[in-house]
């Protein structure tokens, strides 16, 4: 990625407006009395966090993981199972969610990163599905039916996650922090290695990098961020079930990343907004909205692979080209 010459591109303006709009959304919801918007966007922000985490390995590292939603489940069940056992403190729940995700990512990553290409896709998918069946089989925690969470994670007196606005801002702050983290990460030495691996792994080894350990580290970091997203999702829904880690959910996450624009820091956020808003709009038209979404997806794959971010960049270039430089 060569350095951009100007900060004031169409793309950057849109991104800045987007971040401001996300920050001001509760104000709008309050003024317009639109409580549904707040609920929808809380979900969007949480899913955006998951998509940002997937983008780290898929977009920047070129690792085509098809089981990323598994961490949504692991993070969610960490909160749900502890709550069921009477542990409500977020200071316990969230670190457990993070540790459990890290551990799972470490084991699964260590195994699946031994392979590449289509094997990697299928193996990450299969292991995630294994986790799905395991949680579906544990009767004590609801099995197939899922687990209702009667109390949201508790931190300090002043912070009440049951308050919609407060919860939204907690999610948003975590999302922004994750975006900044990924931004720092991909521009660090570690990030350069990761992008080198995506570009040409054989050459990376030839110039002296032991690529496996860097890929595995990225895999674990991505798992941790997504596990956190799972903990948030369980709190938002007051419920967790195996379906959050069903393989189609991993597919949704990939769609968000690709729709937004792979390998760009902010792309997955745009992708998450686009997909979830599109779902809302389409399902308003017809009960059978997936009959439209499916072929639409195929068309995006065939004709618009740069995603929204790529579209903005192209539009921006056209706009600048018209002016004499």
């Amino acid at each position, binding site marked *: 990625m060569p350095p951009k010459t100007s900060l004031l591109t169409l793309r950057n303006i849109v991104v800045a407006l987007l971040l401001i709009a996300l920050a001001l959304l509760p104000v709008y919801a309050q003024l317009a009395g639109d409580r549904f918007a707040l609920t929808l966007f809380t979900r969007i922000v949480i899913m955006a966090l998951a998509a940002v985490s997937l983008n780290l390995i898929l977009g920047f590292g070129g690792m085509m993981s098809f089981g990323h939603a598994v961490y949504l489940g692991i993070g969610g069940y960490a909160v749900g199972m502890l709550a069921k056992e009477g542990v409500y403190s977020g200071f316990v729940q969230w670190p457990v969610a993070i540790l459990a995700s890290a551990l799972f990512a470490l084991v699964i990553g260590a195994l699946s990163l031994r392979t590449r290409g289509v*094997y990697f896709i299928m193996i990450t998918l299969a292991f995630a*599905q294994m986790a799905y069946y395991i949680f579906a089989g544990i009767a004590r925690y609801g099995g197939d039916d899922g687990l209702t969470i009667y109390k949201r994670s508790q931190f300090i007196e002043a912070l009440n996650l049951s308050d919609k606005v407060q919860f939204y801002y907690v999610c948003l702050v975590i999302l922004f922090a994750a975006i900044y983290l990924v931004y720092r990460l991909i521009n660090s030495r570690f990030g350069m290695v990761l992008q080198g691996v995506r570009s040409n792994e054989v050459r990376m080894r030839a110039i002296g990098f032991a690529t496996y350990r860097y890929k595995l580290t990225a895999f674990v970091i991505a798992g941790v961020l997504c596990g956190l997203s799972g903990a948030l999702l369980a709190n938002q829904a007051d419920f967790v079930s195996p379906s959050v880690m069903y393989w189609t959910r991993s597919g949704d996450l990939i769609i968000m990343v690709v729709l937004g624009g792979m390998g760009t820091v902010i792309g997955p956020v745009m992708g998450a907004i686009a997909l979830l808003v599109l779902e809302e709009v389409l399902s308003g038209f017809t009960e059978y909205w997936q009959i439209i979404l499916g072929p639409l997806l*195929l068309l995006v794959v065939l004709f618009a692979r740069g995603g929204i971010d790529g579209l903005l960049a192209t539009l921006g270039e056209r706009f600048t080209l018209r002016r004499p430089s």
Partner: protein
Amino acid sequence: MTLFIEQCLNGLQFGLLLFMLAAGLTLVFGIMDLVNLAHGSLYMLGAYFAATFSALTGSFVLGAILAMLATLLVGMVVEVVAMRRLYGRDHLDHVLGTFGLILFFNESVRLIWGPAGLALPLPGWLQQPISILGFQYSAYKFSIIVVSLIVAGGLYALVMRTRIGMLIRAGASNREMVGALGVNIKLLYTLVFGLGAALAGLAGLMQAPILTVQIGMGENILILAFVITVIGGIGSIRGALVAALLVGFIDTLGRSYLPDMLREVLSPAAASTLAPALSSMLIYLLMAIVLIVKPEGLFSAGQR
């Protein structure tokens, strides 16, 4: 002992069924280098078609044959309309594009047949148990075994003994060469995809009377087919057969004997909690072990 034999036959039946699904997947991957998630949708369509056609014709066998032809046709149309444009793209494009197809097929089925599942009733002659070597076994499951064995044999003969099979094998190892031979690659690809679709459809319609016909039925079993392709080695028909039988046996026997085995070492309560989770893990453990020992699968694509 009879129970054990029965479970073994069940494992064999399940394994052969899985093979039919995995064979199409691995062929399409080996030859067109295409990851097709929508393979499970064709399995589902096979079942729905069979339910409809056998109700219309009043004959299970006729319905099944028509259903296979219909899935063959759907497969070829899908190849011409969508898949063809995905060849040569990277795997991410395949995954996303065919994921879109799954959404489309699931929703189309819901639109046409409604959200409730269908039943595919068996004719009387298949419902009675038959006696093999002095013990009773379901005639229907036995006929699945027979049909699957015939199909597997036919597939093996097709791939190993015929000109088209030679092209298929050549195509899997060297695409350009087949093109250089002056073969109509486009037609070959359409046929191979159609064949894979018909096999998936057959698997789906044979499973239909045992389970209910419902939306999403192809997705769970698709994951199993993936596991099988990974264990067997992508692109290898022989690998798919060996791995499918392994998975079929381990899954079936695991589900029926693991709870008892656990009860030997654990308290009954703990055993009944653990058993379902553990038995669904078994095949994934098998996959993990194979990966550790042979990351390219048991039979790599070179030797098929």
